[in-house]
């Protein structure tokens, strides 16, 4: 229906016999954009769609270019083989060993980062004055701004030495637990545990900011009700803020997991990046382990077949991080607290 802007479309004048109300046509008001507006709409729409196209192209081109390696190895074999050897013919490459390391590093990182993030978010939203809040938010943002390379550098040359005694203590006292077991004379540097701690520092800001935003949306009425009933501050947090922000905590943690899975340079520096069997990888305190992204970064400029294999590994990483992030945004936006939260 073409109408001049601003005109209200009236129903056709009704004759003497008014028809039943059901039959009335719905009134539709549309605008007729000017030429400039149409161009404007096209341009912005084009930009929006190009983002869609770009992300699709990323997946598509990785798939096309990795078909060499995938075709030769077979997709299923590629996904389930742990070793990566290009020195034998035919080359035996597979991504499972890399995936195991990736997931372990990410899980260690999230396990360490989530409690810290939730408590820092609480400190920001519930425990600080307006001025101190600004400072704390600034520190968390600054932590987010520090490049991954610097984290890796610091972790590699400084933090690693400080963590080795902790690893030693853990393995001496809790060595019966498979995760903390180490072989007899294993080196404790360059371990998944250390990489996980450094990655935890990197995903901490993003989890904190999602959780903080969710907490700050807690209805003040409910908080005040809890306090008015005589609850302490912690009582109020336990009964109002935390239940309200549950969805945000879960979603924020998953978002952090997605980031941790894709973390590249820091783990490329920290881990030896030699794929291991899963049974070896789970001994997180000892030297060893490889992640998909770090492995790719370390093999930049390799021969054609290896490169094709790396692109296949990149494709797997792409799909996994995309899936994790999508689930995270759905979890956050579906939860009661996260409706208006950007993640």
């Amino acid at each position, binding site marked *: 229906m073409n109408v001049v802007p601003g005109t209200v479309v009236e129903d056709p004048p009704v004759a003497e016999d008014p028809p039943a109300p059901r039959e009335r046509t719905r009134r539709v008001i549309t605008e007729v954009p000017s030429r400039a507006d149409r161009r404007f*709409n096209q341009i912005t729409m084009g930009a929006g769609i190009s983002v869609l196209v770009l992300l699709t192209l990323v997946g598509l081109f990785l798939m096309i270019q990795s078909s060499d390696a995938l075709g030769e190895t077979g997709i299923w074999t590629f996904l389930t083989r742990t070793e990566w050897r290009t020195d034998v013919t035919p080359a035996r490459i597979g991504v499972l060993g890399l995936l195991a390391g990736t997931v372990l590093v990410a899980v260690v990182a999230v396990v360490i980062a989530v409690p810290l993030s939730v408590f820092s978010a609480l400190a920001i939203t519930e425990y600080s004055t307006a001025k101190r809040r600004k400072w704390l938010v600034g520190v968390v943002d600054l932590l987010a701004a520090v490049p991954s390379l610097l984290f890796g550098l610091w972790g590699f040359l400084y933090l690693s030495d400080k963590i080795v005694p902790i690893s030693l203590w853990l393995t001496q006292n809790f060595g019966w637990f498979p995760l903390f077991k180490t072989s007899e004379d294993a080196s404790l540097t360059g371990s998944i545990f250390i990489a996980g701690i450094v990655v935890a520092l990197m995903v901490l800001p993003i989890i904190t900011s999602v959780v903080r935003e969710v907490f700050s949306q807690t209805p003040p009425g409910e908080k005040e009700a809890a306090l008015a009933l005589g609850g302490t501050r912690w009582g109020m947090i336990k009964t109002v803020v935390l239940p309200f922000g549950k969805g945000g905590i879960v979603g924020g943690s998953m978002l952090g997991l997605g980031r941790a899975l894709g973390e590249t340079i820091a783990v490329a520096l920290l881990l030896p990046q030699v794929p291991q069997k899963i049974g070896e990888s789970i001994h997180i305190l000892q030297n060893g382990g490889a992640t998909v992204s770090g492995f790719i970064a370390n093999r930049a400029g390799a021969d054609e077949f290896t490169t094709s294999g790396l692109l296949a590994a990149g494709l797997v990483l792409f799909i996994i991080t995309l899936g994790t992030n999508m689930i995270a945004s759905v979890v956050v936006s579906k939860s009661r607290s996260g409706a208006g939260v950007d993640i």
Partner: protein
Amino acid sequence: MTSTTSATSATPETSTKTTTMATASRAPRNRKRTARRPREFTTFDVWVLVGSLISALCLNWLIFYRLTAGASAFGFLLGSYVTFLAIFAIVTTDRVGRLVASDRVMTVVVVTAAAIVFIPLVLLIGYILVEGLKALRPSFFFEDQQGITPVMPATSGGGFHAIIGTIEQVGLALLWSLPLALAAAVFLNESRSKWRRPVRIFVDAMSGLPSIVAGLFIFATLILPFAKSGNPLFGYNGFMASLALAITMLPTITRTVEVVLRLVPDGLREASLALGASRARTVWSVVFPTSRTGMTTAVVLGIARAVGETAPLLFTSFGYDLMNSNPFAGSQESLPLFVYRNIRKPDIAAVQRGFAGALVLMLIVLGLFAIARFIGRDRSKRKARGPKPATPNSAQAAKQPLKGGSNA
């Protein structure tokens, strides 16, 4: 529902209060009766805190350094902290009851967690500052790595070629991504297209894309297929790096700008439309000027993120020890690559050179961060005196969503 639960949780508390009241009433009449508040924090509480801390430290010193051996400083600190919490909890429970005690203990835990976030940041900045200053000389800003051999000291040569590369690559990346990001943000916020939802989901997904995948994508699309053509434009060069960086910057800037645009009051838009302006004119003359500071902050933060990205460069500009000021031909160095390549070399001088580069990189990132903070500072106090502005403080909002998380 919620209030019911808090009511139950509050009940024992009230009983605590009544008991204290009862004790108070047994005291002589002339003594002034004061109401006890759960959040009250007296000098005595400070002494309790300090006392628990000292006793915890002593106990753990005894355990870790006298009775058992081989514990690290970390074990001592962790043990002390746990013991401290336990002692503090017991003492406070004895004094003011379980409920108030749990509140106090949790306060301590929350404050500690917030403090723990500070520590690595301070350590990291301090470490890079100290190590970087050892090898950073003015020559770093004027020389490249020509004629540098492993036996030469760390202070010889410099990273001028890397600085030039970073400036060119990030500048070009901004050139590609900024128009697209602005248009996409306008699309998300100002249009009423049904495509907005999928586009938003994809922008979110893209911001979680590991940055090495962006580099791999450019490599797989533009470098690998043309590898045999010998055309320098489609080889390892700064231009390819700028494309990869643009992909990592695009979602960051789009989302931040979108948040800023959302803050522009609808009244302003409606006023403009009611005066007969087209939508394009409204965006250009009303929405953009209103959110200018916020958009600047968004762009500065986008740059700050792109400057430190390393992973996408490994497959695109590759790194080079000499000056190459032409971003369109031949591999090119940049600061992150300079650092990454140097600290992986076996000789100590190279590692120290890497630290000098890291220090420069860190100063650039911190400087950009400070600039973004400065632009986005709270100007409401100054504005209050002058004529009331119609602009909301859009920059305040832009500062906050730097949650891109560096995937580098």
